């Protein structure tokens, strides 16, 4: 029996999923926690990949949707009882999607450099709403008192308060997001986005009204960022305005360029690489007291990565092959 060709190409992804599924068995508490963070950020990075890599819309305000969902999760959850997962998760994603619809409708009237600046500005607006007002507890943030559960009838089937259950829930979310985007990008909608990225004017001349496509992509990306935001809020049970800061938007952009723009696997790899890089630079064991200034190393790493690896880690093999193909002729 031969495997269908598309399934055969998927074996690296399946291997990674299997590895992640087995990880809690041979990783310690700290490592499992780190892996959970990586998976959440991978969902976040995948959501931005839909915007930047697939549609060519460089947004510097994507953290806003992540943050809005996180805050929605904490704000909508009852103070004393366990919130219903099937109610809270869609609500959080809907909140993110609604804000994305608002920001997208206005921002997509602009192009290029304006778009980047405008998305940044709207994210700052959201930051100030949560930082300056009493809505979300101001700069102190708010807590999610009781983690959500999935209850069927009267019995609790899934309690996200249990760290192992939450780990597998996050893994399921990552797999679902990846699969959803893979199918989406192959659909007519996805191909239209690819055409818009390649040459929007050409698409318009062919008969595609590009604004609705871009807005839909923007809202879907916002909703998926909301999924990541929900997971983030549930994981540590605490949300503060810094998750909406533009450093978050910068970090997620860095993740996808580090991994490799234009590839779903690149987004996941980039999230993984980014978290590890940050851990490395912040490690006092390696850098001693200088670890306090890890942002300096991160900044230099960002510059080096963008300058030297334009195709990211995923494209590194191909890039090295290209440079080796050229080098012999030079000698």
């Amino acid at each position, binding site marked *: 029996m031969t495997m269908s060709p598309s399934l055969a190409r998927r074996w690296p992804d399946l291997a990674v999923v299997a590895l992640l599924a087995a990880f809690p068995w041979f990783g310690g508490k700290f490592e499992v926690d780190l892996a959970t963070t990586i998976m959440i950020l991978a969902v976040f990075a995948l959501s931005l990949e839909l915007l930047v890599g697939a549609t060519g819309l*460089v947004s510097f305000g994507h953290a806003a949707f992540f943050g809005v969902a996180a805050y929605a999760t904490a704000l909508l959850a009852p103070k004393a009882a366990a919130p219903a997962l099937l109610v809270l998760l869609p609500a959080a994603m809907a909140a993110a999607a609604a804000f994305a619809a608002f920001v997208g409708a206005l921002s997509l009237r602009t192009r290029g450099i304006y778009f980047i*600046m405008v998305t*940044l*500005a709207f994210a*700052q607006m959201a930051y100030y709403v949560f930082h300056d007002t009493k809505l979300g507890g101001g700069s102190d943030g708010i807590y999610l008192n009781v983690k959500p559960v999935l209850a069927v009838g009267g019995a609790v089937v899934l309690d996200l308060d249990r760290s192992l259950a939450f780990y597998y829930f996050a893994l399921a979310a990552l797999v679902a997001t990846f699969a959803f985007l893979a199918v989406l990008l192959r659909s007519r909608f996805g191909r239209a986005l690819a055409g818009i990225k390649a040459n929007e004017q050409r698409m318009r001349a062919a008969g595609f009204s590009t604004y609705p496509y871009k807005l839909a992509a923007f809202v879907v990306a916002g909703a998926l960022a909301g999924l990541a935001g929900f997971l983030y809020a549930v994981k540590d049970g605490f949300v503060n305005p810094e998750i909406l800061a533009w450093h978050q938007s910068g970090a997620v*952009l860095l993740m996808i360029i580090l991994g490799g*723009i234009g590839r779903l696997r690149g987004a996941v790899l980039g999230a993984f690489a980014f978290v590890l890089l940050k851990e490395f630079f912040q490690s006092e064991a390696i850098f001693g007291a200088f670890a306090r200034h890890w*942002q300096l190393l991160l900044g230099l790493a960002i*510059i080096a990565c963008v300058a030297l690896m334009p195709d990211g880690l995923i494209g590194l093999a191909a890039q090295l092959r290209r440079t080796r193909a050229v080098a012999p002729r030079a000698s």
Partner: protein
Amino acid sequence: MDLATFLVQCLNALQYGLLLFLVASGLTLIFGIMGVINLAHGSFYMIGAYLAYALAPWVALHLGGGFFTALLLGMMLAVAFGYALEWGFVSYLYEREHLQQVLMTYGLILVFEELRSLLAGDDVHGVKPPDWLTGSVPLGDLMTYPVYRLFMSGVCIAVALGLYVVIARTRIGMAIRAGASNREMVQSLGVNIRFLYRVVFAAGVALAVLAGMIAAPVSSVYPGMGNQVLIISFVVVVIGGIGSIRGAFLASLLVGVVDTFGKVLFPQAAGVLVYVLMAAILLWRPEGLFRQG
């Protein structure tokens, strides 16, 4: 609000707007002429403030000078720094996509912030204005207005006039205006584009540094002060239109008014109002008020 308070707020709005103009004009020129989006522009403002803090004692000790000597020295350092930065870093950004420029200059922000932390620490510092600029002017019966803030506005107006003269009346200004609307054309006309770029960038840096230096006595010197200015400058550039100095001027004043009066009239929503303004203008004119080229 009585007349005196209104007058005070107007002067505050003017001062804030004019200061924003110094920063935003550099940003819009650099983007309009060179097509580079430079996120680190706010860092130059911060560098200016820290320069004011660091240079004052040094200048007093070694040169026997005061505030203005420090200002002059700071500007010279800023121009040299801007020139070197363009030559060593920014010139590599011209051919790159916007995303790469955004990320590389974002990395630069982190580098500048940490260097600042290493060299000047993380504490908040104050800077004293020169003695003859302290004190206040009376406004009506009850209110007074700080002389130093009037001085700030004066400096900004002088710089704005200077910019106008250079851009509208000199040959290099002509090249700048042409470059803002059509970069390739200017190149093919044989203008030494590399030199023009370096000059424009150094000027942009100098403007931001000057803004930081004169703002230091009023806003104090603290970590992260560049970030807020940067984003508001972006809003100004979006509202005014990329590449347009006139647009940056009008938009700066508009933002100054909305922000200042917003803080007084709607203190809860103060931080958000400027973005609401931007959203409203985008609905009406997606390319800013005075789009170039």
